[in-house]
């Protein structure tokens, strides 16, 4: 009986289904024309944006965003389904997988918690952390860096 139960649970796929609504779980990402980091950006997506899954293309998801279609890397997406495997068998605090990340925002450790932590720990220089995070690499310069260096990450259909 235990085996049957485990089998049933593991048959529940962790990946997203075609037609399923998925959400953007990162602050910002691109809806690309092709499954490629340096493809043309069709639209800029924000945390919580809802997309309709069409199909998985290796590490990428072909999605619809309103009237627009394109590709988003799957690491930027969260499923709205609950992944029972993660829920039941994760033994530590670290396991990620398909929880609804967007629904979890605003719970636990939030900007408000950080703000209160900063007040009680003035030695923490969050301005410096912000400075590091605000430094960004221009995608066109990065593409040029990769190409001129004889590298090839832009051929992204791994």
């Amino acid at each position: 009986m235990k085996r049957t139960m485990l089998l049933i649970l593991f048959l529940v796929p962790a990946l997203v289904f075609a037609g399923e609504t998925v959400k953007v779980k990162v602050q910002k990402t691109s809806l690309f024309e092709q499954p490629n980091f340096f493809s043309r950006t069709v639209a800029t997506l924000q945390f919580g944006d809802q997309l309709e899954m069409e199909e998985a293309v290796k590490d990428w998801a072909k999605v619809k965003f309103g009237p627009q279609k394109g590709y988003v890397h799957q690491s930027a997406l969260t499923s709205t389904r609950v992944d029972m495997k993660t829920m039941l068998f994760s033994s530590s605090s670290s396991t990620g997988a398909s929880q609804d990340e967007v629904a979890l925002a605003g719970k636990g450790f939030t900007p408000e918690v950080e703000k209160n932590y900063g007040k009680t720990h003035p030695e923490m220089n969050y301005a410096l952390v912000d400075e590091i995070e605000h430094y960004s690499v221009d995608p066109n310069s990065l593409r040029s860096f990769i190409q001129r260096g004889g590298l090839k990450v832009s051929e992204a259909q791994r």
Partner: protein
Amino acid sequence: MKKILLVLLVPMFVGCATATQVATTVGVSAGYLTEGQKQALDKTAVKVEKAARPVSETEEYYIGRGVAATILTKYSLYRNQMVTAYVNYVGNTVAMGSPRPYTYGGYHFAVLDTDEINAFACPGGTIFVTRGMLKVVRTEDELAAVLSHEVGHVAQKHGLQAISTARWTEVVTTLATETAKAYTAAEMASLVDLFQGSVDDVFKTLVVNGYGREQELEADGLAIGCMKTCGYDGRQFVSVLDRLEQTSKQASGGIFSTHPDLAERIQAAKGPCAAAARPPAPEERVVRFKKTAVSW
């Protein structure tokens, strides 16, 4: 037993404690469960759901910011535009070749102004490398090896594994599963304490104790994969580990106190690195490294 299992399995697929409560109510009505069994199962279902919730990506981000802020109380930031840009170009390149190219706040690379040989991966994607470590690497490929290893720790969320299970369970069970609301002063004070404890757990692992053997080997494997995907010469992963091992004979502290098992890692990496060999770097890659390296 089968009936009880069925009663439990249905709500499990729905995935919420409320559904469990519905099912146990049905179970009581149908005579499968006593009221006492129902209450026990309801409590267990709620507890399992709460305790099993992993750290969310936004929480990972805020923990990572706390860890970065803590590291910056110990080390100064090296503000050299050319060096910062170069480290970010190489770092973002290898991050794109990783299994987790996107995190909530993205990958950011910064240089610490110290001769100590070290590198740190904060949860969520802020990665520090020291000037001491930069002086160890001889090529862009070796720098890519160092940064890939740190990206590997981020991709596998190794930092978060340092948070004590008891602490995280307390976060989730006492406060975090409520719907979004304004916390009372006491709840907020408790959350701030738990946040500080979580940040300290990760900081101690990164800076004082180091990751476990399995985590280091896992990050190495991912790093070699990243290098191969990006077109860096995987053999240079071993060359930088070799140099670190040689350096460890004359130096102490920093990475040598948190990464004592370099010989084993070198041995484990040799095979995969040979398979990730690439032709010599083009002139452009060699020149830009040399041009930047004079500034670190």
